[in-house]
């Protein structure tokens, strides 16, 4: 017997809206909180129409106070609700850093599981859309350094919906990073209704033998572009979309690097104390005898994300990826 699943053609951002709608229907304890998410539907329209459909007590505009409403959401989560909080841009999450660092991620261990915090924090992030300063940060690493937090980042509409549903169903706090640059980059057919993608599992986008390229989020299209051009030079790349930054899919990374012996990591963040270095640590531990060349990092720089007239200099480009791959190939 075959079942046909209806699909809709969605962008990454509309796939998120779809996931939120599915979960608002599915569980009456799910509620959305944030600035301008109600009537306005969010500054990126991620919650478009949801307040109209589910009401003002499910989709709630909060006062302009990230620490306050994240802290309140922690209390809600500990008391039976499942808040999904929108931070308007990741660069504005910092006032809530304490509530996340000292409470959201610790309440379970502080009480040996008596209380827990099933909380999702959504945040658009990254540069490349000519946004004003601070709106473009990609500081994933200050959250992967939070024991108790999970950090996910989809690169396409299908993953976005599946990961969002998994995040809302997760019993622990999840930071859900949304690459602004990819919000409307492509449309694809996304299944209707509920499905989820396991948090902690990466995705092999391309199979290849010469070099492993590890990336996620908005850097995926940059890497895919480079990969195509490299194929013409007969360099075959094994491309991994991590999808989850914490916990890392160490198996997938090790298996690939043990095969290729060469690695290029592509990320937008500042290189120091970044997720790229976590990946290197996994490779150091699992692939020492397989490595044919040092790992190459293609990354943003240890500078603030520059004002948008300079951001193209900051962001990794296919050229920089190709340059790095060539370097590991010719080592």
């Amino acid at each position, binding site marked *: 017997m075959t079942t046909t699943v209806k699909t809709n053609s969605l962008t990454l951002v509309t796939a998120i809206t779809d996931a939120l709608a599915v979960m608002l229907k599915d569980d009456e304890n799910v509620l959305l909180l944030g600035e301008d998410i109600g009537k306005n539907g969010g500054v990126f329209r991620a919650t478009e129409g949801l307040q109209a459909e589910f009401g003002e007590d499910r989709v709630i505009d909060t006062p302009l106070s990230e620490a306050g409403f994240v802290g*309140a959401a922690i209390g809600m989560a500990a008391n039976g609700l499942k808040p999904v909080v929108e931070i308007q841009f990741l660069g504005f999450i910092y006032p809530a850093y304490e509530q996340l660092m000292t409470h959201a991620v610790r309440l379970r261990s502080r009480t040996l599981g*008596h*209380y827990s915090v099933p909380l999702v924090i959504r945040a658009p992030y990254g540069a490349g859309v000519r946004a004003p300063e601070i709106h473009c940060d990609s500081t994933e690493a200050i959250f992967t350094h939070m024991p108790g937090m999970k950090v996910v980042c989809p690169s396409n509409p299908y993953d976005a919906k599946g990961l969002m549903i998994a995040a809302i169903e997760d*019993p622990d706090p999840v930071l859900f990073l949304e690459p602004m640059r990819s919000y409307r980059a492509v449309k694809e057919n996304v299944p209707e209704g509920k499905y989820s993608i396991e948090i902690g599992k990466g995705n092999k986008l391309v199979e290849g033998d010469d070099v492993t390229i590890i990336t996620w989020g908005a850097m995926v299209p940059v890497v895919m572009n480079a990969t195509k051009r490299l194929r013409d030079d007969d360099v075959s790349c094994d491309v991994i979309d991590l999808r989850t930054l914490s916990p890392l899919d160490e198996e997938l990374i090790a298996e690939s690097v043990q095969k290729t012996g060469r690695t290029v990591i592509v990320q937008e963040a500042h290189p120091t104390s970044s997720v790229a270095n976590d990946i290197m640590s996994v490779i150091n531990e699992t692939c020492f005898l397989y490595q044919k060349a040092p790992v190459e990092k293609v990354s943003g720089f240890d500078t603030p994300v520059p004002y948008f007239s300079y951001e193209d200099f900051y962001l990794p480009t296919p050229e920089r990826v190709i340059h790095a791959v060539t370097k590991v190939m010719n080592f």
Partner: protein
Amino acid sequence: MTTIRMVEGGTTMENQFPIQQFLDPQGNWISENHQELLTEERTKEFYQQMIRIRTFDRKAVSLQRQGRIGTYAAFEGQEASQVGSALALNKKDWIFPTYRDHGATMTFGHSLRNVLLFWNGRNEGNIPPEGLNIFPPGIPIATQLPHAVGAAFAEKRKGTKKAVITYFGDGATSEGDFHEGLNFASVFSSPVVFFNQNNQYAISVPMSKQMKTKTIAQKGLAYDIPSVRIDGNDVFSVYVHTLEALERARAGQGPTLIEAVTWRYGAHTTADDPSKYRDQQESTNRREESDPLLRLERCMKQNGWFNEEWVNKITNDAVQEVEQAVEEMEAYVKPDPAMIFDYVYQEITPSLAKQKKALLHMLGGDEQ
């Protein structure tokens, strides 16, 4: 240039928020209100609870001195604030305390053993007795206020009549979380009571350096939150005003801010030396003047309710109960290293499992 009138709070606020007192330091009932509350039974109930928690508090201080628990924050002097407010709660309500409010949580029903475990560096101590909603003590100042507001928001949404109380100090009012918590509660009319114990010091920093205002109650005006300043050493005033604030909450009238003016007689914690920043003679004087227990004794004597034997009995009962808790705390199963890994997530991650395995192996290797 002639001066444009600018409305100024300033000096007028102490008059706008007079300290509400029912029982004066000599133990006389000085209010027309709630005379009916002044019964032998209730007075003795208050007194017994205060004896009980003071007994615990002093024992804990000496346990710390003997190195049998870690750094400890004593609440001596604040018993009326903690007992009066905790006894006003329903059993299904929520408490969000700080590190200094276990007098309240124990009155509410927390396990004395667990409170001692907490102070001995055991998170097991954060687990409340079956059916009681007691959050672990907020260590980072004022961070528990938004949690209390969120929990209250959730109760309102579920349509229950449960209310929430959160405790915090004078110093806590300077933190952003105080402001954001009160604003959120007022906007959503959440059923929460903000119970401030103004003991007039934040470690060494006196109220005068913490804020320019002479009252904390007036800070409610910034949010249209009804506020009241009360004598925090008058257990009747604390009880009545907390009851009323809780009723407002249950009736859907939203949050209330209570400023309970009090004083800690001892050090900030056992790691603190108050003589560095204040003359402890003042504490001694205040003790004679307005110790919350003395006040009740005077009241009981005046009403002919005071009974030496009874006092000895409840004191001994308290000592027994505390000793029992100390024994249980010290007999408690020793720390298991696995615990630090098993409650980070509901399900341990692969890399954490590896870290756990490595440590357990090391410990095994070193110990056997």
